[in-house]
């Protein structure tokens, strides 16, 4: 407390050092640099040490133990130099000298005590790394508490202003964007304590930095009161972070950020870029801009909902009303009063069309001898414009959050894909990845505890389906409408993902070896959707290219199947002129063009005339007889009875039974009655 109080006493005093430009003054250049460095170190320690007392962060405790005593000792040794910098040449002994001495003595005592505790507790585990980290963090903290007079003292004026998008202005803009990005990037994966500690340190730094260039005399003037919007951010941010006050935080987030952003783009500072005032302006507005943003990006505060935005607007409305009153009242005592630009012509000069709005609509009255001028229309327009800006800011925030969430999801999904491949590699061992993951399954379809949920629904469309289908079989998959037949088939052929379980086609896992698995499959869809502007031949050729079927083979197969299905004459007509049956036949030819091991058909006979249905059934029998697998779904019992070797009945997403047709016939069990028993 002594340490802090003495520092604060000194903070509100002007220093003679501030007037020295370019190393020309009552101190030599090396002395100037040295005393600036000491002041800089002291200001940084005043932020780190009190915060470190409240947070369980080892690095802050190390700063208190190792850096604080050294700096305080140096301040005491060079006390005369310090007082010369503060009071000018030949400084007289007085209250300030006592306060500085007391401050550093307290600091030395505090630091010494902390160091003593460390030695006593032998707290030297990984001391080298910890010291390194301590210096690193302290260096960053020094950047956060940058000395606002150093450049001016050492270099004088640079001859450039930070306005009108000059080079220095643009550099200042880049800092305001890069700083929060870098801080978020480095801290995003750290623990909550570290993130909160960082935000707290920055908030306190903002507070200390803000009052750096104030004196007691200036702050008690109306123009010096910290009521300007961006000035309020300096203490409101600290209050919000220290006391975790949501309402205060979202006021800064929705209102201060907008104001600071406008101030960064349209600065009202005409002093030299290296001057104290200019540095102070930029540091103030950088903090006002990115502290609230960091509060959300570091997940100390949640993203604002519309409800919280409303609260921020209510708080802003109160602030705005208060500023109108304060401006009108205090301008009687100090004509320079201009909180939130409501009095001056700063904005009117930028937006000249607003001049008449301001000058022609004034409400004037007197009260207790004081004159109150309220620019009511200008105030209303300003308020409305600011509310609009708040909403636009919220929209921009929402959009940026969506983008950030989206690309986070992209990274997560990419990592999941890479993990899949690594797992596959581990499972395959020395075997190449294009070999079946399960060599014993090369002549079968194996479905293992397959389950499927759509989107975020809790309901399973298909649950715990386990099946094996071997080569040479025609396997029927029957069930009522909505039982889960198409869902199972679509997951098998790769149209939909698998929620749980696995599916292997000829030993290839459809999830992990999709290309190899799909190469084994020929699929006939249930919706006979084909490209209607292509001819039948072009469509089949398109599919043949996707399956890399050589030209001679495909021409031979097209001829064979076109002849079988009596489609030869129609093949060179656009598909949109085909009947339903012809479209289905084209799909069958396309599915068989690469002579797949597994032929999957989803309700292939729906809507077909008897001739077409017969032809497709014959094709299915022939394909199975050649040692391949035919897997099809249907709800037409008679067809299934005639051509299937085995069937599975599915109802409400679950397999009710798997039966051999031969066995059912032997036991004289009617498939229809069996099916109806599960309905």
């Amino acid at each position: 407390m002594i340490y802090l109080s003495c520092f604060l006493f000194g903070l509100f005093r002007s220093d003679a050092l501030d007037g020295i430009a370019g190393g020309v003054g009552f101190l030599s250049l090396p002395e100037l640099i040295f005393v600036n460095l000491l002041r800089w170190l002291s200001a940084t320690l005043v932020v780190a040490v009190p915060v470190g007392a409240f947070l369980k962060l080892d690095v802050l405790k190390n700063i208190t133990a190792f850096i604080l005593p050294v700096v305080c000792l140096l301040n005491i040794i060079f006390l005369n130099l310090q007082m010369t910098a503060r009071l000018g040449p030949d400084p007289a002994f007085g209250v300030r000298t006592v306060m500085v001495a007391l401050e550093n003595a307290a600091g030395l005592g505090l630091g010494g005590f902390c160091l003593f505790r460390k030695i006593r507790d032998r707290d030297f585990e990984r001391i080298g790394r910890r010291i390194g980290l301590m210096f690193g963090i302290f260096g960053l903290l020094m950047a956060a508490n940058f000395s606002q007079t150093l450049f001016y003292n050492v270099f004088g004026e640079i001859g450039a202003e930070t306005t009108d998008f000059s080079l220095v202005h643009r550099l200042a803009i880049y800092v305001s964007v890069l700083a929060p990005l870098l801080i978020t990037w480095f801290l995003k994966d750290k623990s909550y304590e570290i993130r909160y500690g960082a935000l707290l340190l920055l908030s306190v730094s903002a507070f200390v930095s803000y009052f750096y260039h104030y004196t007691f005399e200036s702050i008690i003037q109306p123009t010096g009161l910290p009521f300007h919007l961006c000035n309020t951010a300096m203490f409101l941010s600290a209050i919000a972070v220290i006391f975790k006050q949501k309402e205060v935080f979202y006021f800064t987030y929705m209102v201060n950020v907008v104001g600071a952003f406008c101030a960064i783009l349209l600065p009202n500072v005409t002093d030299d870029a290296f001057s104290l005032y200019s540095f102070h302006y930029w540091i103030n507005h950088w903090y006002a801009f990115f502290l609230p943003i960091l509060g959300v990006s570091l997940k100390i505060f949640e993203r604002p909902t519309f409800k919280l935005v409303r609260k921020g607007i209510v708080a802003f409305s109160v602030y705005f009303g208060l500023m109108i009153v304060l401006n009108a009242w205090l301008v009687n005592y100090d004509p320079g009063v201009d909180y939130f630009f409501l009095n001056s012509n700063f904005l009117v000069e930028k937006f000249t069309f607003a001049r008449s709005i301001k000058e022609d609509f004034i409400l004037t009255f007197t009260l207790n001898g004081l004159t109150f001028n309220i620019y009511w229309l200008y105030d209303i327009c300003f308020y409305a414009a600011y509310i609009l800006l708040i909403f636009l800011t919220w929209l921009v925030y929402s959009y940026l959050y969506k983008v950030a969430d989206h690309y986070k999801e992209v990274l997560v999904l990419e990592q999941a894909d890479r993990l899949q491949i690594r797992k596959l590699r581990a499972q395959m061992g020395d075997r190449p990845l294009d070999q079946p993951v399960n060599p014993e399954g090369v002549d079968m379809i194996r479905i293992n505890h397959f389950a499927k949920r759509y989107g975020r629904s809790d309901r399973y469309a298909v649950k715990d389906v386990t099946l094996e289908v071997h080569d040479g079989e025609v396997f029927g998959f029957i069930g009522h409408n909505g039982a889960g037949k198409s869902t199972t088939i679509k997951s098998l052929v790769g149209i939909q993902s698998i929620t749980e379980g696995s599916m292997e086609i000829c030993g290839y896992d459809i999830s992990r070896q999709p290309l190899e698995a799909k190469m084994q499959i020929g699929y006939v869809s249930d919706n006979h959707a084909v490209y209607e502007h292509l001819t039948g031949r072009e469509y089949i050729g398109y599919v043949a290219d996707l399956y890399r079927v050589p030209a001679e083979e495909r021409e031979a197969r097209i001829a064979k199947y076109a002849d079988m299905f009596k489609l030869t004459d129609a093949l060179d007509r656009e598909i949109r002129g085909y009947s339903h049956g012809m479209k289905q036949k084209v799909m069958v030819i396309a599915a068989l063009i690469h002579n797949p091991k597994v032929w999957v058909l989803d309700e292939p006979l729906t809507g077909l005339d008897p001739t077409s249905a017969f032809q497709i059934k014959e094709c299915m029998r022939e394909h199975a007889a050649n040692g391949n697998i035919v897997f099809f779904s249907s709800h037409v019992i008679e067809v299934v009875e005639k051509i299937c070797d085995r069937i599975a009945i599915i109802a409400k997403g679950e397999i009710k039974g798997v039966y051999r047709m031969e066995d059912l016939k032997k036991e004289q069990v009617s498939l229809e009655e069996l099916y109806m028993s599960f309905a």
Partner: protein
Amino acid sequence: MLERIKILIAMQLRDRHRRRKVHPLVFVLLRVLAVICITAGVWVVFFFFNNIMALRVDRAFLLFLVGLILLISVIGNTNELMKTLYLGKDNPILFALPANHSEVFLAKLAVFCIDEFFKGLYTLLPIFLAFGLFAGLTVGYLLNLILLLVLLPALAVLLGAVLSMPAMMIRHLLKRLPWLTLILGLIAGGFAVWGLIALMALVPVPLRLLALYTTFMGKVNVFISEVNQYLFGVRNLVNLLFAGRTVWDYLIVLGILAVLSVLVYFLAMPFYFRIVAQYAESTSSKRHRPDKKARTVFGTFCLKEIRMIFRTPSVLGSYLYTLISFPVLMYVVNTLFAAINTDLQGDLLVISFNVLIGLVLCAAGNSMCANAVSSEGMEFWVLKTAPSRTYQIAWAKILVNGVASALSVLLGFVTLSLVTDLSWTDRVFLLITLLLFDFAHLLWSFQFDLLDPHILDFAVRGTSASNPNVGRSVGIGLLTALILCLFCVFFFLKEGWMGGWIRVLCVAVAFCAIRLVLFTANLRVYFKRIEY
């Protein structure tokens, strides 16, 4: 009959407008905010016209504007109604329902009308409100404005419905006689080019804008008055907004509406089914050429895309439109620019405006890409089941669209070179900037549809009209064009010619590179995860 029509309307509306994820209050608030912002923008434009450009924003101006809006709406509605009424993929579903063809026709028309009404809330309402604020709002103005918001879209839709029938017949005829299409196209193109060159030849050189301006604006005002003389019906419609409206105005407007309704009922409706059936029944044969060898996957995708473009007239038309409009507009605008004596700063502003115009046109053309995944429709299953890296179809579609887009930019570059005074370096840099931004926008448009495909919607309706990704693509394209134009103006004025170009090209390269990286990441992750 009314009950069935109501059910058909409700069914179609329910299908188009899904349940919103946001709170209704937020939804309404955002929409109201959008209307306020657009109204403010339009008011600024009117202010600019009236106070700076000396173009009188008065009743005559409003009449001309409404006439123009009606003309554009009728053309647009005719085109869209052709697709929706006669070529809609949901026709087989609706015809199979227990409803008459005329009931289906009326229901579809009503749904289209409702959609146009809601669109009018973002276009017509801000225009009329802004005009009202400009000229003086009255209670009568506001009350009749509500009426106008219903009547104007209804008029445009009914006219479109009447015109869509002969338009479909002409379309059908031209499809049967492709040589006639070619001849008519060449003749129309020839006339258009001749007319354009003749019009541009009238531009005085040097074009002293300030000196000629007053004369020119006076002639524009006279032109508006002369056109207004022919806007019978529209005049009565606009009269409704102002004091001095009479009962005759109401009667005339309602009379026109009644006449159009009768025409629709007795002409368009009876022939509706016949026209739909005619389209569905026609097909064509192609000559078979045996494949010598199998193509690569990428090659086969490209071939398929090209075939689909040439066999889908609406798609081909869109590409041709982009291919023609870009160079034509560049020619017109730069002829005007070339006629003006400009100093270096003026030249730099000319470059900035060329960037704006070029990118706006590219944005319009690239909107095809914003429908790329959805346009696969139910046929998307082929891509899901094929044992190939089928995400390559994305690159095939981008290549095809990109070639068309780049070709239009190149043609624009050629026409620009014919008329401009800009240096060769400026032209080449402009070309590079436009190509880079065009490509980046193409990728971005595709990405919209990749992340939010409307496969089932397209499968049912067969048009891209309802795909919100198209709107997003155009919106982002316009925003990008505006931002880049402002960047150009800023950089050129601040940094000079070479400094400005270096920055503009850096921004273009950076933007293109970022979009490429982001698109590739999204494609790698999300294409295989598309499900429907």
